[in-house]
Each structure stands twice: as structure tokens, then as C-alpha cells.
């Protein structure tokens, strides 16, 4: 049966192109806008907006710069000019073997040698953004769903859903148990999907968590793994913050849990990793998918054609990450510095009467401002957020942007600035809290 199509006067772009699933029209972008229009600068604009909404790691660049100075051949194709040719031609979607080996060994080092990674299971992608989308394309059909614990990284709304057509069904976590994932919450989310006739394909966790800044406990990982086994679905573990756990032993990777189980049921587990957070190199676009499932590895590799890592960058990182002395030193010092930063901000906030979730990883803390809310509602949280943005001039991320079901929590980044700037931010919060106290007193 032929169908006549009416061509409209101006042919449209696709639904995907014009949808707002990219998330950039959300109210939270007002934060970015305010920062862009009035960015803080220690000397040139000391009263500007301080960016505390960007999870970047800037505390350890000196270590990288020192390495590059000592090993200039890593970036310049070595002394053999002919290796430039080889490198420039290399577009094999397997990725440079030396790079995959270096990544696998780096991931092992981060986990204190408690898990082994096979370089042949490392699939390269241009960043974790690409890795998460790619894994979703492989595991789910349009209309299917992934269960994602809240609060979660706002970018997932775009990365997991936009072009894939896959849904996110939230697994609600709250402060009653420090936002830990529970079996009840997983079951509830699963049932919710079923009631809407949506097929669940997997659970996607971020460990260490963004925005909580905390590692997932081993017992919880075991529960989650048992859950996905019982439902016969997949588990994706986004471990991009694994190198930023303050104490090496406190981070347990799903890889360790699998190893302890002798890799039983491992073909449903996939790990996403990237160098954007641990090494502070988001511009270089270095991400990977590590899967225990052969078919996923093969398919992901083919799909990675759309998002390969520049061979020039693979070469540089292969060099850097295979230098075990350097990586050992880097991992250790980076952890130490992040830990110190964390304590600085936690103590600073506590002195101003503000509590945070007890964290042990990441580039941010999860701050509890619910006592300051007029009402326990999203609208009050947004109002508070706006006053912090425009009056205190700090761009922090409100919990509602992370789909937190409990109003009043905020993610505050601490690793993308100097200590001095952090002090100034804390000072501003101090002043804000003082004024609030006075206002509260006056109102009584």
C-alpha cells in the first residue's frame, strides 16, 4: 500500500536534532551562563562567579608537566621521525596495543593490583561520554530502560538517552542510609519499569559516585550483582573516578567482586573508564569500555569507529602510563592532594555550620543545605540555588539537576581551582551564613 508523503515547505531536521534531550536548555544552564558572563579571576575579577560546578581535576598538573619535560619524546613521536608516519596512519579500531596494555596496567595499579585487566578486552572511545552512549546502544533497544541510582550525573540524561532512544528509570536513594543503593530501591525501580511496559536491560552505577563523592561498599556491590543476575540483565560500572578515591583500599571495583566469584556471570558486566578525572585530561578524549563479554567487546570495537582516540594521543598516553614509576607516584600523590582538598572544604563548611555527606572519593562533596530550605521542596532548593549563584556568586550544582529525590543537597567541586580560590569561596559562604543567621534572628 503506497503512502503519499507531503513534503513540507521547509524540510525539517530529525526529531533527535530538535529535541531537548541534550539537556542544555535546563534551568541549571543559568549557572554556566552566570559564570561565563562574570568569571572569577584572582587578580582581574576577584568578585566574579566562582565555578564550583565543574568536576575537573587540576591539583596534579605539575606531576604531568614534570613527566613531559623529562620525557619529551613521548609527545614528539620519539626521535625516530618514521614513527610519525606509522602513528598518523594508525586508525585500527583495536587501538594501539601499547596503549591498551598501558591502560590495563594503569587500571590494575589504581585497584592496588586487586583485579587483573586483559588488554584485549579494552575498547577505546573518545571519552567516557562516548563509552556510556556506545554501551547503551549495545545493551538496549530504543524504548528499553537502564536503571540508574539517584542522585546521578546530569550528563547521563543526554549520554544514555538522546540518540539511543533508551530510557532511564531512577533507583531512588536518600539520606536515611547515606544514599546507599538498596535491594528494595532496585526492586521498586524494576517494578516501576514493568508497570510502564518498559523492558529493563541493565543497571548503570557510578563507582565512586558522582555526585556523592563516595565509594560503593563491597556488600552493596554484591547485592547489585546478585540483583542483575536474578533479573538476567546487565551491569555497567562507570569507574571514571576510581583513581580519585582518597584511600586506595576503600575503593572496591566490580572487577574485584567478579574475581572473587571466579568470573561467574561476568559476561553481563562492563566497566567504563576514562583519563578525564584521574589524570585531568578531559581535552584529550581518552575513554575505554572494558567488557567481560566477548560479543560486547567485538561489537563495541566496531562501533568505536565513530569515536576513536587520536593515535597521537594514544601514543603519548601509552608512553606515560607504561612508566610504572611515574604512575605509582602520580596515583599516590594525586590521592593525597585530593584528600587534603576534601578535608579543607569539609572542615571549612562544618565551621560555618554546614554538613556534608561523608565522602571518600571524587572531585566534589555532597553538601546538605536542607536546614536552610523554607520548605522541603524542589522549588525552595532552586530558590536557594539562585541566591547562592547571584548573591554569593558560587556556581554549585543543585541536587534536583542530579535527580535527587530529597531537596536541599548540592554538589560542590573543589579540585578545579587553587587553594586560595577555595578559601575565598569558603569565606563567601561564611558571610552568607552570617547574614542568614542575622536574618533568622531578626525574623524571630
Amino acid at each position, binding site marked *: 500500500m503506497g503512502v503519499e508523503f507531503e513534503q513540507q515547505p521547509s524540510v525539517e531536521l530529525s526529531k533527535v536534532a530538535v529535541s531537548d534531550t541534550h539537556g542544555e536548555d535546563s534551568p541549571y544552564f543559568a549557572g554556566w551562563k552566570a559564570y561565563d558572563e562574570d568569571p572569577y579571576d584572582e587578580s582581574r575579577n576577584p568578585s566574579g562567579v566562582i565555578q564550583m560546578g565543574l568536576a575537573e581535576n587540576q591539583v596534579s598538573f605539575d606531576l604531568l608537566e614534570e613527566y613531559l619535560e623529562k620525557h619529551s619524546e613521548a609527545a614528539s613521536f620519539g626521535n625516530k621521525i*618514521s614513527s610519525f608516519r606509522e602513528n598518523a596512519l594508525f586508525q585500527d579500531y583495536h587501538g594501539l596495543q601499547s596503549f591498551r596494555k598501558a591502560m590495563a596496567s594503569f587500571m590494575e595499579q589504581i585497584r592496588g593490583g586487586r583485579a587483573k585487566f586483559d588488554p584485549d578486552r579494552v575498547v577505546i572511545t573518545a571519552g567516557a561520554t562516548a563509552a556510556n552512549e556506545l554501551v547503551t546502544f549495545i545493551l538496549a533497544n530504543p524504548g528499553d530502560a537502564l536503571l540508574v541510582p539517584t542522585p546521578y550525573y546530569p550528563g547521563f540524561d*543526554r549520554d544514555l538517552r538522546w540518540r539511543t532512544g533508551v530510557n532511564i528509570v531512577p533507583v531512588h536513594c536518600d539520606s536515611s542510609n547515606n544514599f546507599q543503593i538498596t535491594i528494595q530501591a532496585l526492586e521498586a525501580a524494576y517494578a516501576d519499569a514493568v508497570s510502564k511496559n518498559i523492558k529493563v536491560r541493565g543497571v548503570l552505577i557510578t563507582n565512586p559516585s558522582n555526585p556523592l563523592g563516595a565509594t560503593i561498599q563491597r556488600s552493596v556491590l554484591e547485592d547489585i550483582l546478585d540483583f542483575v543476575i536474578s533479573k538476567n540483565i546487565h551491569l555497567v560500572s562507570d569507574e571514571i573516578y576510581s583513581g580519585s578515591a582518597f584511600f586506595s583500599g576503600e575503593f572496591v571495583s566490580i572487577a574485584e567482586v567478579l574475581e572473587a566469584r571466579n568470573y561467574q556471570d561476568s559476561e553481563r558486566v562492563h566497566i567504563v573508564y576514562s583519563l578525564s578525572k584521574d589524570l585531568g585530561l578531559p*581535552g584529550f578524549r581518552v575513554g575505554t569500555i572494558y567488557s567481560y563479554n566477548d560479543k560486547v567487546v567485538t561489537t563495541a570495537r566496531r*562501533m568505536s569507529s565513530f569515536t576513536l582516540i587520536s593515535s597521537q594521543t594514544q601514543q603519548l598516553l601509552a608512553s606515560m602510563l607504561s612508566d610504572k614509576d611515574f604512575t605509582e607516584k602520580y596515583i599516590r600523590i594525586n590521592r593525597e592532594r585530593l584528600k587534603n582538598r576534601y578535608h579543607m572544604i569539609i572542615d571549612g563548611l562544618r565551621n560555618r555550620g554546614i554538613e556534608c555527606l561523608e565522602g571518600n572519593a571524587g572531585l566534589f562533596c555532597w553538601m546538605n543545605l536542607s536546614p536552610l530550605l523554607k520548605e522541603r521542596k524542589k522549588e525552595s532548593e532552586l530558590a536557594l540555588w539562585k541566591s547562592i549563584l547571584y548573591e554569593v556568586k558560587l556556581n554549585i550544582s543543585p541536587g534536583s539537576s542530579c535527580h535527587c529525590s530529597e531537596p536541599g543537597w548540592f554538589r560542590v567541586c573543589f579540585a578545579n581551582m587553587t587553594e586560595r580560590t577555595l578559601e575565598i569561596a569558603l569565606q563567601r559562604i561564611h558571610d552568607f551564613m552570617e547574614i542568614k543567621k542575622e536574618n533568622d534572628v531578626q525574623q524571630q
Partner: protein
Amino acid sequence: MEMLSKKATCKSHGQDSSYFLGWQEYEKNPFNEDTNPLGIIQMGLAENQLSFDLLESWLARNPDATMFGSNGGSIFKELALFQDYHGLQTFKTELVEFMAEIRRNKVRFDPQKLVLTAGATSANETLMFCLAEPGEAFLIPTPYYPGFDRDLKWRTGVKIVPIHCSSLNGFRITKAALDEAYDEALKLNLRVKGVFITNPSNPLGTTMNQDEFNHVISFAVSKNIHIVSDEIYAGTVFDSSKFTSIIEAIMDRTLEKTDIWSRIHVVSSLSKDLGLPGFRIGMIYSNNETLIAAATKMSSFGLVSSQTQYLLSKLLGDKKFTRHYIQENQRRLKKRQQVLVSGLQSYGIPCLKSNAGLFCWVDMRNLLSSNAFEAEMELWKKILYEVGLNISPGSSCHCTEPGWFRVCFANMSQETLNLSIHRLQAFVTSNGDGNYQNQKLSTRISRRNSLVVS
């Protein structure tokens, strides 16, 4: 057993095609002048290896481009943190000037209308995501690059309907072929969103002529659809004056102020012109603001490494170098092509007359045992396994006529090209019987004595 998505389990990745199979066979037994002289010579890979010396000497003179600036370099930190999907401004500015230079500056490009992507592979897919719904179609002239089956269709769900081109008129696009393809789409209940052309053509190695532009443009105007022009081989035209970009073609017809202007989208890359496929530098250029906005956001899934953007901004910023490179590269490509064409010609194997590209479209119809694709496959396998050449059969490019093959000439040394011509000549003269094996042996022994100097 784990369940994966339909996309994961279907064959749309295209890797079972002969294009990829030939590649696999080559990987198992790759030719090497010293260590494996009887191995398979890779002639199925459209790479440009002819001008690396020019790039290498530039690098030797400009070490700072890769060293993150030894002069008070905070450039490393800046680059390491730079993940803005708008791309490095300096890089985009140099890139558009380079693109203009290749087009004899007949077209000027605005860097704000450029989206950077991890290779043209990513650019093409992104355009499909933006221009069509799953199940809608693009019309593409045959023969076409086998990778399109994956790049344009796999994850997007978009369909390809071929515009059949024939050897009777040198595989040129005709009005009749366009109309026929459109009708075919209607019959299949497919809504047509656009025409996708590759200019210069892969695998033909020809540039689009004015008649073809007339047909494609009028067609797109009358049907109110998009034109995507993949111009990644623009820098491989042997004579710049013979290449016309779609943008120039539209301007020549004074259509810039009309609707069609916002439905023209150009794809380019540095993989073929500069021979840098590993660096993953692709781009989309369009006057359609909505498209650019959407594609820019989508490029988050395939950004170009800032380290690489920086290197190329320095390289392309050296105008003296780029001008010399473009000219010299073209000269070398032309020379190489002539070696292949004349070599094949001397044994009665004609090539389609071409003026661009890294390959020739070779007419081996008179070597077929019958005028059928089975015979083409038979011939392809003989050439792969017996002659030891991995070339691309026309069927993998969706050619409607059996017997045509794409043969690459720019991804090997002169000596290797000569050897491959010899091997093919030996095969042809032996008519594929037992004599061939002896011929092959004597060819190897006397290879060093009988190299043809071109």
C-alpha cells in the same frame, strides 16, 4: 545467554562484506618486501602515503607543535582541560582556510559554521542522526564507499536507496537515475530526506561535472530535500581547477539566497588529503544554524583530541607549507595514478578515466568467466589468493555491473606498486591456468632486474 540490542546482533556493521574480508586475509598474510615477498599486497585501503616526507620535515622544523611549547608552556594544561565542543578557535580558523585553499579560494568558509568530529566516519553518521528519522532514506549514487552501509545506517536506522549509475556513460549521475531511485523509495514506503554524494567519488576517482550538478541540485530543489556532499578527497584532485565544491556549484547557480542553501551540508576530513587517518580529524560544514547547533552538541560523542587540534593548528597555520604541500601532493598522486593506469592498460585492462582519488576504478569485465556477480567473486578470490592482491570488488561498492574493481595506488611504495602490476600482468597472460604459478615465481626472481621505471 545474554541478550544484546538488535543493533548489536544485526549485520549492519557490514563487517561480513568482502571489503572487510579481504582486509582480514591481508592481515593474515601481509606482503613485506623483505620478510614476506609473496604475501598479499594491500590495494584495498584508500590511504595517502605519498607525502609523509613533507609532513615529517615540517615537524622536524617545528618541534614545538608537539611539545606543548617549551617556551613558558602552560599550553599543556590549557589543552588538557579544553573539551569545549566548539573546538579550538585557532584550529578551526586555519582549517577553513586550508579547505578554501584546496578549493582555489572560490569558496570561503566561516569557522562558526564548522563542527569538528572524530573523523568523517563520525561526521557522516552525525549528519544522518540530524537529518533523518529511523526508517527514512537517503539516495546515494552507486558505486559507493562500502563503509557507508555501516556509517549511515547502522545506529541511525536510516536507509540507503541506490541511484544506479552505469558504465555506459562513465557512471555519471543522470536525471533518470535520480527519478528512478526516488520512485523506488516511494514504492518501499520510504520518505526520502536527501541525496548523499561523494565528490570526488570513491570508488570512481572522478569529480562531479556540471551536468551532474545540474541534475542533483534541481532534483533536491524540486523534492525539497537535503544534499550531503562528502568532499574528503577534494585535496587529491590532480588538477585543482577541475574540482568544484557543492557550495561553489550552488553559488554559480545564484541559489545562495534560496531555500536550498540551508539544505547543503559538506563533510570533510584530513585523513585523505594530509594522510592522517589516525588523528581522527573530521568536520561538518553547513549554513543551517539549527543543524550546526545540534551537530555541535552531538559532537560530544566524538570530539577531536585537543592535543591533535593544537598540532594541526600549527601545521595548517604555516601557509607557505600548505600551499607547497597541496601542489606537490597532487603532482605525486597524478604520477602514481599514471603508473597504475598505463601498467594495466598495456595488458588490456582499462581503467575509468579519473582525475582524483587514491585509487582507480578498473574494468576487468573481460576477465570474467561470465557476466555475473558470482564470476566477479570468483575473480576476486583468485586475485586475492592466487595473485596475492587485495582489491575491492565492485559488488562491495554496490555496483550494478559485475567486473569492476577499485584498486588503490597511494598506500605503498613505487616498487610495491610495480610488483603488483607485474603480478596482475602475469595472471592475465596466463589466463588463470597452471602456467600462472611458474610466472609468479619467475616474476619474483627477476623482479629486481625488470622493474619498470616510470
